[in-house]
């Protein structure tokens, strides 16, 4: 089957993307369209004393100047976090109020205060400048340490000491005693640098209000339009669900940042009703830096204990997580159930204890960003393993091999139950491709040129397709994490797949169609994927956490099962053969052992003409399914990075990067390879280049591409992308997911390679030339 599962077919959607025919939110123009511009706080923490709108209101083209008191006065609710976390002492998390437009207080630079609606974008922007907001500045806590310090400014009244929750997982006493009895304990302080997501398409919203029907429409850059509709109606009271249509058309990248519902969508919907005009807002790049949820920002102390043979006996972790000024939609789950539950890594660790202190600060809200918690866990575990091996004088590959989990299913001490894997297989494959054993010769060759060569590895594991719904519900999730699908076979035999997953770069239009082509042998071109519109698809949970493959496609498979059953019944009836003899092959419905066959289109036609169907069968050929996964899926892999450091400048060059992943069954190897490439580039960005920097006043100093460094083509090598796959045992296709793996496994591999090169384990991300140079100097001084 050339177009089915496993075929590297070209992406159907690329025709419109590479010819400039994509339709993004900002490409949409509605009749009677006005524009919104937001007045944002230039202060990180201040009371709003007064707002003088008179000058702005008097300006040409201005339709409305709207503030937070009007918004809350109209009953628009506060923005919420949808995952309830309970502290160690049993108390609920301290969620502070977040109004889409600030009412009394601003808590970060970029906090929206006023929305100006005007005829043109320029008029809106100009009038926004004329809005006079008087602030009373307050003391600022711009980072974790400042937020938890004695006498720190109180950011939300209901979060004393700026603590959102103080949560833990695992067994403290057992872990302490394991560490006390350990032959060797490795201790590290690890910071996971704060990142800005930088989707190529900035966030945008365009809203319409139909007064006659009292109906709202929102076009927006969303990874999950149904969740947006649910939250906008159930919690923000913008409009009832049946009176609100949310469309997420082509979306240019999300990386998590477009999961959440932001103030701008709320305000634009509300303002459309207030002004009876359609309203468009598109973020500029500065607004993206100032308002898109940031990622990571953890500070961690960790201790890992080993017995005399090098077996891990215990792992104790204390993490402080910066949440920014408000709790974003999934923020609370990231440093808890998406992070601490992965601290067993790929290893047999009998005792784990982790505590997480979640704190507010006067910075942009932080939430899930490509990998969400798993990169933080993987970075921590893999740096600990590497450092421990060096401290104990063991080969880092052999220490990992020795501690690998080798039998499945494996229950870790931190909730997760790994279903499958062959960790050694991936390690061996990566080491061979990286010519691990030939490293010393290459190192000598580099040394002859005055360069420092280093090699490092990371054996990450992650968890995709957060599930099952009942389990996540018991852990505090406000939603179920299943997926829906509907298969519509048209009278002419073409097929439409309606899915609750959302494609914003993942290639669903191709891979989902491949699953259908594989099942029925119909041409890929006869299958259309419909997604991203709440009027077309009944409900869905969207795309994040690499869930579209393991969860979204499983729902499609379930619906295809139902279609197949009906097709076989129709075929049996028309061919006058027993149903058990009917097979579907290459788009033909056949009776085995005979030469009787029906074309695929003949089945569709029979279903819709209903002239000759089995007795009691309903006409039509359309089936839907909801799929609730049995378990998370666990992609894993071994990444090996080889670098060369220039000791004179501290500049790192990545010479080789090998990725051996276990993604389970792969639908389209070309798309998977692309996902791995992008993920590694993002991880290399975190490791070498990227960091959001705030000054002590809470001013974001890296809010443009002049100061925030994204990886470019010359920062990354040509990757060796390999697979050693084992089938996932908990979903019908055996898929594990591949969307985040690259970004999860690469930062520790890169840093382990650099620390190997410079002989100093004390190095933080981003490993800029100046940091590497300083660490090199520190290593030299220590050696003298």
């Amino acid at each position: 089957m050339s177009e089915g599962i496993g075929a590297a077919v070209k992406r159907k959607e690329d025709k419109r993307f590479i010819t400039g025919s994509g339709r993004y939110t900002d490409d949409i123009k509605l009749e009677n369209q006005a524009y919104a511009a937001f007045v944002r706080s230039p202060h990180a923490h201040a009371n709003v004393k007064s707002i003088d709108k008179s000058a702005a209101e008097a300006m040409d083209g201005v339709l409305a100047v709207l503030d937070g008191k009007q918004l809350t006065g109209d009953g628009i609710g506060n923005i919420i976090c949808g995952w309830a976390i309970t502290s160690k002492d049993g108390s609920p998390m301290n969620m502070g109020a977040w109004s889409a437009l600030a009412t009394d207080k601003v808590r970060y630079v970029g906090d929206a205060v006023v929305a100006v609606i005007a005829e043109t974008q320029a008029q809106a922007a100009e009038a926004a400048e004329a809005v006079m907001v008087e602030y009373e500045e307050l003391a600022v806590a711009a980072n974790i340490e400042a937020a938890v310090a004695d006498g720190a400014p109180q950011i939300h009244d209901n979060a004393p000491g700026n603590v959102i929750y103080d949560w833990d997982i695992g067994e403290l006493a057992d872990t302490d005693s394991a560490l006390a009895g350990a032959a060797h304990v490795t201790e590290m302080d690890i910071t996971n640098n704060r990142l800005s997501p930088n989707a190529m398409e900035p966030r945008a919203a365009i809203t319409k209000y139909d007064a006659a029907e009292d109906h709202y429409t929102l076009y927006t850059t969303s990874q999950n339009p149904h969740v947006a509709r649910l939250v906008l109606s159930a919690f923000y009271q913008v409009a009832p669900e049946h009176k609100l249509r949310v469309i997420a058309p082509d979306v240019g990248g999300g990386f998590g940042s477009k999961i959440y519902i932001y103030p701008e969508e709320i305000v634009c919907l509300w303002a459309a009703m207030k002004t009876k005009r359609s309203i468009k807002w598109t973020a500029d790049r500065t607004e993206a830096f100032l308002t898109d949820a940031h990622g990571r920002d953890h500070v961690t102390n960790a201790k890992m204990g080993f017995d005399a043979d090098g077996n891990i006996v215990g792992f104790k972790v204390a993490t402080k997580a910066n949440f920014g000024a408000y709790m974003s939609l999934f923020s609370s789950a990231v440093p808890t159930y998406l992070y601490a539950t992965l601290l067993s890594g790929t290893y047999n660790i009998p005792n784990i204890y982790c505590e997480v202190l979640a704190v507010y600060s006067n910075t942009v809200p932080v939430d899930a960003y490509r990998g969400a918690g798993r990169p933080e866990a993987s970075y921590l575990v893999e740096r600990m393993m590497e450092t421990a091996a060096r401290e104990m004088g063991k080969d880092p590959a052999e220490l990992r091999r020795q501690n690998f989990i080798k039998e499945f299913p494996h229950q870790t001490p931190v909730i997760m139950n790994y279903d499958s894997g062959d960790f050694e297989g991936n390690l061996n494959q990566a080491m061979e491709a990286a010519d691990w054993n030939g490293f010393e010769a290459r190192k000598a060759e580099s040394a002859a040129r005055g360069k420092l060569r280093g090699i490092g590895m990371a054996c990450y594991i992650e968890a995709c397709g957060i599930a099952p719904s009942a389990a996540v519900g018991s852990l505090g999730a406000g939603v179920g994490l299943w997926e829906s699908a509907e298969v519509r076979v048209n009278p002419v035999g073409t097929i439409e797949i309606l899915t609750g997953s959302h494609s914003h770069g993942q290639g669903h239009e191709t891979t989902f169609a491949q699953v259908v082509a594989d099942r029925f042998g119909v041409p890929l071109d006869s299958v259309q994927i419909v997604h991203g519109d709440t009027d077309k698809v009944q409900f869905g949970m969207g795309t994040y956490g690499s869930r579209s493959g393991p969860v979204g496609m499983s729902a499609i498979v379930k619906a295809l099962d139902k279609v197949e059953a009906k097709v076989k019944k129709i075929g049996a009836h028309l061919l006058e053969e027993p149903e058990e003899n009917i097979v579907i092959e290459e788009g033909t419905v056949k009776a085995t052992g005979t030469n009787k066959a029906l074309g695929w289109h003949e089945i569709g036609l029979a279903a819709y003409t209903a002239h000759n169907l089995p007795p009691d069968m309903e006409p039509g050929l359309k089936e839907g399914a909801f799929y609730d996964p049995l378990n998370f899926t666990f992609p894993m892999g071994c990444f090996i990075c080889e670098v060369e450091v220039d000791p004179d400048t501290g500049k790192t060059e990545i010479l080789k990067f090998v990725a051996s992943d276990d993604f389970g069954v792969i639908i389209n190897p070309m798309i998977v390879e692309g996902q791995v490439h992008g993920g590694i580039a993002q991880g290399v960005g975190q490791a070498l280049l990227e960091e959001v920097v705030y000054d002590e006043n809470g001013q974001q100093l890296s809010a443009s591409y002049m100061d925030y460094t994204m990886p470019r083509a010359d920062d990354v090598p040509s990757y060796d992308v390999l697979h050693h796959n084992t089938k996932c045992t908990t979903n019908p296709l055996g898929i594990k997911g591949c969307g985040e793996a690259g970004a999860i496994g690469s930062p520790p591999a890169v840093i382990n390679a650099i620390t190997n090169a410079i002989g100093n384990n004390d190095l933080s991300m981003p490993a800029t030339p100046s940091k590497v140079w300083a660490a090199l100097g520190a290593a030299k001084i220590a050696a003298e």
Partner: protein
Amino acid sequence: MNLTGSRDLSCARDVVWRALMDPDVLRQSVPGCTEMAGSPEDGFDATVVQKVGPVKATFKGRVTFAEIVDHESLTLSGEGKGGAAGFAKGGARVTLTDLDAGGTRLNYEVDAAVGGKLAQLGSRIIDSFAVKMADQFFATFQDVIDPKPDEEIEEAETNDTKTKTWLSRLRTG
């Protein structure tokens, strides 16, 4: 941002002190200043048009003097609001001492902060911008309080202003 330095001015301490208190001198000396009104006692209201890297804005602000030791030292503090461009605020401690060879040494310690778009886009150039502003301020301030003969100005100025000066001399001459 901290900026510390000193300038030697050709005038006597008394002249420098009075010039620092004179809104007209300050208006001429502060780069980009279009309006300056007020008094040392009540403070000054100022409007300054400036471009910091990619951010151009009109800053409206108020500067007040405190801790005044007559003819010796003062502390000034102020804040300028640039609308969507953000804000700049800070203070400066200024002290004057006599120079042995005549003239006055002006020492300054500036502590300033920027916010909003200025910080987001201009933070990495703000230090060099401040140094440039200080250089321009003192160069003009020196010229205003102790104008040089025409020839010297001509040498010091750019070609543009040189032509202008020359033309204006023709007119007056």
